[in-house]
């Protein structure tokens, strides 16, 4: 460093690091063999004792699928415009159904558009319309009481009030910086002004939300077309998926859910109750009417609609039934005249009361795929 003159510094005359003594390839082979032995030992001895991973290793949140100002957010996986089957719904559409398994079951090209407590009445008209490339042949609605209205996150509602951002402008880092700078005061103003602790907690949430959305917007613009980053992402995700399927892996970021609290079947029951309580009967009736109208329009365009209700735990089901009975939900699809498979009481591992573990999601997806094939919905190719 500056304070050490060349002649004083042991670094100045330090030669580049010498290679190890001549050792041939023996240590390299020993290293590889030992690493392989450790992996095999881990897989045999530790792997079976690890709690099941609660998140699917290949899942990512998807690119933003804009519907309308103030509505959403929706995330898309796969090419929605060119899909034979589009899965739509709330977070259960994301967690409980595997696109690859559906595609592998002969159901053609599969895509998904989901959003937490999704407003499907707003989403359905946009399928295919955004690109003008025809509507999907089959729409699989993953139904839950939130279909009839629920409030996911008031702060998110504020974030979405403004028109969908012009994604191209956000493709540069400074575009995102500009977006953040503009959104921060709006979001902060939506929070409490007192007491101090509540204000600070709200400000912290705002920062987290801005961070998450900045990343998501960047990912969305990146995935909007071919790019080297997209190549990296596809390759990295493929390798991660293969590794997670072959090996018992651990995640430091998921310690809380993976080791300390592996599966909590009642965790989301209070949250479910809280979210559904944000709508009264009149609001639910209005949402129901909008959904039915949107679904009818899709049917009139020639699309086929099928609906499933995914498994949940008894505590979450009880919370849902306080607001929407099974019969009420069933009546929606009866009125539309579309098949509705009710699997809510199916006994499968549910990690938090509302979403299946990822291995269970594979099992459940196969069951749904069988049901769809049974309806003759596999494309003729």
């Amino acid at each position, binding site marked *: *460093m*500056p*304070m*050490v*003159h*060349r002649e004083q*510094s*042991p*670094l*100045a005359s*330090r030669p*580049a*690091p010498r*290679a*190890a*003594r*001549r*050792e*041939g*390839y023996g*240590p*390299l082979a*020993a*290293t*590889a063999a*030992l*690493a392989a032995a*450790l*992996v095999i030992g881990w897989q045999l001895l530790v792997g079976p004792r690890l709690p099941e991973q609660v998140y699917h*290793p290949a899942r990512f949140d998807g690119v933003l699928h804009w519907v309308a100002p103030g509505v959403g957010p929706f995330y898309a996986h796969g090419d929605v415009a060119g899909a034979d089957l589009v899965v739509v719904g709330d977070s259960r559409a994301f967690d409980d159904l595997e696109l690859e398994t559906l595609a592998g079951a002969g159901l053609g090209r599969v895509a998904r558009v989901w959003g937490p407590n999704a407003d499907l009445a707003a989403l359905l008209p946009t399928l295919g319309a955004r690109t003008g490339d025809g509507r999907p042949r089959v729409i699989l609605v993953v139904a839950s009481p939130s279909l009839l209205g629920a409030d996911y996150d008031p702060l998110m509602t504020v974030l979405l009030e403004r028109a969908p951002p012009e994604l191209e402008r956000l493709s*540069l*880092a*400074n575009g995102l*910086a*500009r977006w953040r700078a503009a959104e921060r005061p709006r979001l902060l103003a939506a929070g409490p002004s007192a007491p*101090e602790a509540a204000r*600070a*907690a709200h*400000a*912290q949430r*705002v*920062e*987290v939300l801005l*961070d998450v959305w900045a990343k998501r917007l960047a990912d969305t613009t990146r995935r909007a077309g071919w790019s*080297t980053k997209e*190549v*990296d992402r596809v*390759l990295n995700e*493929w390798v*991660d998926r293969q*590794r*997670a399927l072959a*090996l*018992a*892996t651990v*995640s*430091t*970021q*998921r310690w*809380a859910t993976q080791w300390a609290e592996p599966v909590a079947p009642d965790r989301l029951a209070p949250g479910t109750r809280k979210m559904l309580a944000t709508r009264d009967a009149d609001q639910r009736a209005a949402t129901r009417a909008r959904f039915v109208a949107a679904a009818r329009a899709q049917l009139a365009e020639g699309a086929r609609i099928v609906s499933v209700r995914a498994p949940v735990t008894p505590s979450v089901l009880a919370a849902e039934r306080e607001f929407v009975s099974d019969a009420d939900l069933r009546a929606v699809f009866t009125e539309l005249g579309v098949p509705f498979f009710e699997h809510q009481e199916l006994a499968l591992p549910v990690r938090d009361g509302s979403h299946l573990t990822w291995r269970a999601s594979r099992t459940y997806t196969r069951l749904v795929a069988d049901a769809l094939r049974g309806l003759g919905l596999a494309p003729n190719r």
Partner: protein
Amino acid sequence: MSFDSVTFWLLFPCAFAAWWLLPWQAAKCVALLFSLVFYGWWNPWYLPLILLSSLIDWGAAQRIHASAERAVRRHWLLVSLGTNLGLLATFKYGGFALTNADRLARSLGGSGLDTVVPWVVPVGISFYTFQTLSYTLDVYWRRLAPARTFVDFFLYVAFYPQLVAGPIVRAKTLLPQFERAPRWRPARLLHGVYLCAQGLFLKVVVADNLAPEVDRLMALASADAPGLTPTAAWLGMLYFGCELFADFAGYSAIAIGLAALLGLRFPVNFLYPLAARGPAEFWQRWHITLSTWFRDYVYIPLGGSRGGPWRTYANLCITMVLSGFWHGAAWGMLVWGALHAAALCVERAWLGRRAPALGRPPSGLLGCAAACGGIALTQAFVLVAWTFFRAPEVEHALRIVRAMLVAPAGGAPLGLGALADARHLVLVSPVVLMHLRRLAREWLGWRESAHERAVGAALMLFLLAVVRRDNAQDFLYFQF
């Protein structure tokens, strides 16, 4: 393209095979092509910049070398300096200048400026401009003959192992190695494999998994949230210190390892900086190629320690503040550089030549105790200084520093606060173990055997295989 991407490791075997199998001149051309693909993978629009910088420095160095006239030589040196510093000023510091001009205009009652510059900082611009600068300066000072061909020179600037985040390899180190084909040596290959495994382990397992915890601390600081307890602040900054070390030392290890796989030698960039017993020793261990660059091209030309104590302190301050500014166009970086300058001055004034230096082990029990105390004090200082390096705003950094240093005296609660999970300390343990091993070598003369090295590498490969990577982060030093 990044060293931790699957893409790189799919393409590298092709570059490796071409390097060793093709005739030497063709091998260099293929390496150059691969380097350009490697760099252009981030953004192909960056390529003209590096080409422009290289062309100008190549031409300037040729003319400097060919001319005996002082005025001509100086003219071409200024062309080179102007180009490189101009690129840095425009692309790296343009936004900073505009932002501050905007703030100044607003504070004076004006309407302000549009502070958004229409470009992003090209990856690695600070590194390659410093390399080309050092080349021209060395040729000017007659320490180095210019490269024989433009391909050699451009390969030196753009060589993929060291292009985007160092180590900053000097021309006198790398250019001679391009003159003839390297020899295939199994021991060098082994060394390269070990370094790549170590670097990937540090990056993928340690740094990427600590990063979210550090982000959490920064979110607390930016919101001035009540969960920012003294323990949370110290723990979060410890995580950041380890993340930064694992990230950058990991990148350097991969870079040096790749060079070894290609039969080349790169200089050491990190010598276990957490084992430093004082600020001066810290800078002999941390980002060595940068600190020696500043020593040789800024500190010594300024006069070094030759002008008496006050001149020395002034030179130290100028050098360290410039070093801080090199790291980023932000006031926090300037504060960080100034803090290190102050620490170096205090150490020099207090201990003079008795200051601990690299390669001088402590003697006796008392010496060991003093060395341990020195390590603890140095690391505490370094962690406090890192807050200005990491926090996006000086104000946020001050909140963390207050939580670290002032709040405990005021009786603030010492719990983990909002940073409620101390389990990530397990990720700190590999970093600590590496440093303890190094101390055993420096203080006790212990040297690991080939078998111990093989076991260490196997463990790292095993952990790379089983620890998931939920939050892949860019290498931190790419932004500099």
